[in-house]
């Protein structure tokens, strides 16, 4: 008999290292939550500044995500489907926002959506102001988080077997019809998970947001401001509530977008 029931030293070492990795992620989150008393949390229920900030942050990140879908999905589809010269350059460009310091990203954005920029002049007649406004926050969030959406959607499209699309063409479907009836439904789960990722990343953005707008205060900025002005205990409550909102929110979204269990006849 093989001693298959006893774990090998190799597995023990990996288990230990893996567990430490997990602890590293979980410990700060658990600790900050446990350090916050229920009375502090109860008081925070009436903290309208905090809730207003959370609502605005979720909304701005949501709008950033939805608008990015309109432009990001076509880009993702083209990148998944076509091998054109400069494709890898485009792939590299998409990833730039992830790699540069986000405060620098904010400054760079300011040069194209600043008060006297072309974009601002074009947007003003529509009643949209960027600097110091929620629209600007959404732009900052979009800039730093859109790679998550584009990459996830691209991988989703890439995972659709090309033959399905080819067969659909021979059955008489135009490229647009193939996209709507085959590519999009089959990549949909990946796209949704990319949207969730982008939204989450947008909500948590601090660096770029604070450059574009200190006020209205996005929650990460609010947490920073309270920590700066009043110290850890006061900032901690806001932080814990934002963490809880995110964890619960994304838990729910993950649950809703889990693979569908279709009838197996």
């Amino acid at each position, binding site marked *: 008999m093989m001693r298959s029931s006893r774990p090998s030293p190799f597995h023990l070492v990996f288990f230990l290292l893996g567990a430490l990795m997990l602890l590293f992620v979980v410990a700060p989150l658990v600790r900050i939550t446990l350090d916050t008393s229920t009375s502090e949390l109860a008081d925070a229920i009436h903290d309208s500044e905090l809730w207003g900030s959370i609502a605005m942050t979720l909304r701005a990140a949501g709008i950033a995500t939805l608008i990015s879908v309109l432009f990001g999905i076509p880009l993702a589809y083209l990148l998944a489907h076509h091998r054109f010269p400069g494709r890898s350059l485009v792939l590299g460009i998409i990833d730039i926002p992830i790699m540069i310091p986000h405060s620098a990203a904010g400054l760079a954005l300011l040069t194209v959506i600043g008060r006297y920029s072309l974009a601002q002049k074009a947007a003003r007649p529509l009643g949209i102001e960027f600097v110091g406004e929620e629209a600007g926050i959404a732009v900052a969030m979009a800039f730093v988080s859109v790679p998550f959406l584009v990459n996830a959607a691209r991988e989703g499209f890439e995972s659709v*077997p090309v*033959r*399905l699309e*080819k*067969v*659909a*063409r*021979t*059955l*008489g*479907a*135009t490229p647009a*019809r193939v996209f709507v*009836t*085959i590519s999009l*439904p*089959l990549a949909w789960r990946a796209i949704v998970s990319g949207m969730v990722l982008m939204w989450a990343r947008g909500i948590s953005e601090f660096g770029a947001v604070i450059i574009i707008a200190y006020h209205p205060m996005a929650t990460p900025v609010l947490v920073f401001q309270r920590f700066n002005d009043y110290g850890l205990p006061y900032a901690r409550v806001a932080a814990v509530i934002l963490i809880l909102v995110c964890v619960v929110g994304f838990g729910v979204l993950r649950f809703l977008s889990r693979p569908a269990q*279709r*009838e*197996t*006849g």
Partner: protein
Amino acid sequence: MTLELKSIKKSLGAFDLPGLDLTVNEGEYLVLVGPSGVGKTVLLEIIAGLMPPDAGRISWRGNDVTRHPPEHRGFGIMYQDYALFPHMTVIENIVYGLRAKNVSKTEARLRAEATARELDILPLLERMPPTLSGGEQQRVALARALVVTPDLLLLDEPLSAVDVRLSRRLRGELKRVQEELGTTFVHVTHDVREALMLGHRVGVMLDGRLRQIDTPAKLFREPSDREVARFLGMQNIFAAQQQEDGFCEADGVRIHVGRRENGYRHVWIRPEEIILSRDSFESSARNQFRCSVVDWDYQDVLVNLRVAVGDMTLNVLLTYASFEKLDVAPGAELHATFKSSSVHCF
């Protein structure tokens, strides 16, 4: 002629189609056979319009369709893995093409059901493709392709994803459907038997070239060259030197082949027409050689026995009964006898 390919060229990675000409007749079942990796799928995709050729012309009923998009060609394709849409039920798969052509929902449903009945998959209509067996998937794919009444159906290794028994049944199905509908079929495969059983004509593709295209009978009667003959599984092919007296010399053995009109460079001695005997005997057969048994193996219902005639190794096909009666061991001395007419020269 229905479909005509003129010097189609395509290079794609390691694959190279150096210029292919092919004519397919209306209502024909044409099978292209060749080893895996000679780009048979690429050729089908070029015909379907799913991939542009680097050069060359494709015409359909006299019209140049080289630049037409696939949805305007009306050629169906069926892939080896069937490529069923996994997020749609069987019926949704089948009506897909009809809906794309703006056939109304109710009519599409009726036509899909008629086709499904024809292919005996009516009970499957509400199932999801991943829950189907290989044979069921194949029928669904066939139904999906046929329901739009394509002028031409391209089949890419349609039988290689299922086991031998099922493949035999599906082969019959394909033949029957093609005969009933009269749709032009172009089928590619690596399986010689499949090609010979299904094709009205069979094209042998080697190294990206269409080496010979003929009826199965003619392919065996007159293979164009040694490689084609080898690929078709023909045994006992030898390079031969034609001599004046009705003999030829192959591997140092003088074989009587009779007077042949044309020059030839190869002989093929049909393995099933060689008689093995313990003693020599008088007969009208002009070729009789002493030989010794090398080894043997079992092939389906026959035994393939190899015997050495000098430097030449001959394959001989025997029934089990004859093999047992002969009762030989390796090294046993026998006589191999065959008629001149059993030798094909080319």
